[in-house]
């Protein structure tokens, strides 16, 4: 098992096994497109390396050329060559078909779940102190206005939640309000689904625009009650004193 071509193939296979199976043991799985990019880079590097001189180029391309021209081939090797020559056009044909065949799947949607808020909502602090009374009032308002969809348990599973697409946010999930600042929630509650930017598909969200129904004070207290009830804390940028 030597020769530049064999080394390249082994390198590519090894790289693929590493990226696909070994790396995910330590980090999140890589998307297929990224793996493809890395493999293409590896192949390109090998090609550049082996085409530096005429000698190594011959070594690299020689086996491919001998196989394709059928030089000195008999028996199994000849059959395999014919097989490859038949299979390659068929694969191209199949590929053409799958690309052109009409799809029954609607266009892919790529919804941004937590888009950037408008400038006026960045960095606002909750003007109400986190007293037990305020938290309790917030929870009461949450029960009245939010829980039908977001759930009495803050889990996005309220009785009215079933038919929504996208589903109501689950506040007990550490990926939702725990990742956000209070000012972000203030924006989302105040402006609702229709306040979202285009990448968040505002035309699909059923979140009401609560500013037309609730005073700001209630919204800030609802946020307090929401964090408390869901057992999460808002994200902060500075160290707390």
């Amino acid at each position, binding site marked *: 098992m030597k020769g530049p*071509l*064999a080394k390249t*193939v082994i390198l*590519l296979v090894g790289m693929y096994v590493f990226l696909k199976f070994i790396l995910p043991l330590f980090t999140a799985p890589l*998307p*297929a*497109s990224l793996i*493809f990019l890395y493999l293409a880079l590896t192949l390109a590097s090998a090609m550049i390396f082996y085409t530096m001189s005429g000698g190594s180029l011959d070594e690299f391309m020689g*086996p*491919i*050329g001998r*196989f*394709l*021209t059928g030089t*000195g081939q008999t*028996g*199994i*090797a000849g059959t*395999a*060559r014919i*097989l*490859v*020559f038949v*299979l*390659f*056009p068929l*694969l*191209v*044909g199949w*590929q*053409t*078909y799958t690309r*052109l*065949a*009409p799809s*029954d799947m*609607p*266009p*892919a949607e790529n919804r941004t779940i937590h888009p950037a808020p*408008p400038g006026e909502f960045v960095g606002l602090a909750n003007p109400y102190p986190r007293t037990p009374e305020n938290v309790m009032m917030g929870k009461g308002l949450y029960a009245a206005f939010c829980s039908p969809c977001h759930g009495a348990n803050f889990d996005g599973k309220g*009785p*009215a*939640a*079933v*038919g*929504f*697409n*996208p589903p109501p946010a689950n506040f007990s999930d550490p990926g939702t309000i725990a990742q956000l600042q209070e000012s972000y929630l203030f924006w989302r509650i105040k402006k609702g*689904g*229709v306040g*979202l*930017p*285009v990448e968040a598909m*505002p*035309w*699909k969200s*059923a*979140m*009401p625009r609560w500013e037309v*129904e609730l005073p700001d004070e209630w919204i800030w207290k609802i946020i307090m009650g929401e964090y408390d009830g869901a057992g999460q804390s808002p994200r902060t940028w500075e160290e707390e004193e």
Partner: protein
Amino acid sequence: MGYKQIFNVLLGLVLIVTAVGASCAFASDPPPEGGAESVAVRLYLTDGSIPANDPNAAAWDALQPAEFKLAPQVHWPDRIQEVTVKSVKVRGMHNGQEMAILLEYADQSEDAADAAAIEFMVGDKMAHFAHGQEMLQVEGGEVNIWYWKKEQGKATDMSAKGFKTLRAQENQNVSATGAWQEGTWRVVFSRPLQTGDEHDVQITPGEWRNVAFAFWDGEIVDGAVKERGSQKAVSSWWYVRAEPPPDNSIYGYVVLGIALAAGFEFFLVRKIRRGNES
């Protein structure tokens, strides 16, 4: 035949198959795992007439329905917290000229104020599913609503772009027929695919359009209609597409692809051979 030759053969095989295989496999990530629920209504292409006024026609039962869950309308007041219609089965067909959509849903009682509606985005501008209400950062478009009510016995073709703008159109070109049987409503809406009216959704076979649904249970409870106006069961936006006629030109391209690949092989081998000879 020596080991070297076998090795060469294997290498050639591996190279060519991986090259083509990789381009197939890596070209796109697989779609994320979804639930069993539908995302789109397919208007099946059929020859001849469609059962535009017959919700119980046998032709409907041959079609695979899409099913969508419904939620109470909580987006704006007056809200409702619980609704009668929890999900809807949707079937559709077209013949290149006319289209029909059948809505099938459970409702234990047949009431005069029972109603159903289909909403579409009009044109290319995205519109909010709540009557195309104004969005703060996006300029939205208009919606076209096909509304059927039992006591009216017909469809009304409507337009809206924001709250309080819902109105019946001047050009009425939608018809609807409902039939209730043993706790199930079947309502069929029909219309030409194209109408030439700028306020209507235009359906072109092969193109995806956005669609949503709404239902009202008109049962009288304590002297009042249970669900009316904004108190209704709604769906979010889903997709609808009229099936395009089969396109045989695809096979021409497939043959062309095969011929090009074979020609490539031929010239490649010839070039290598000539290179070796010289």
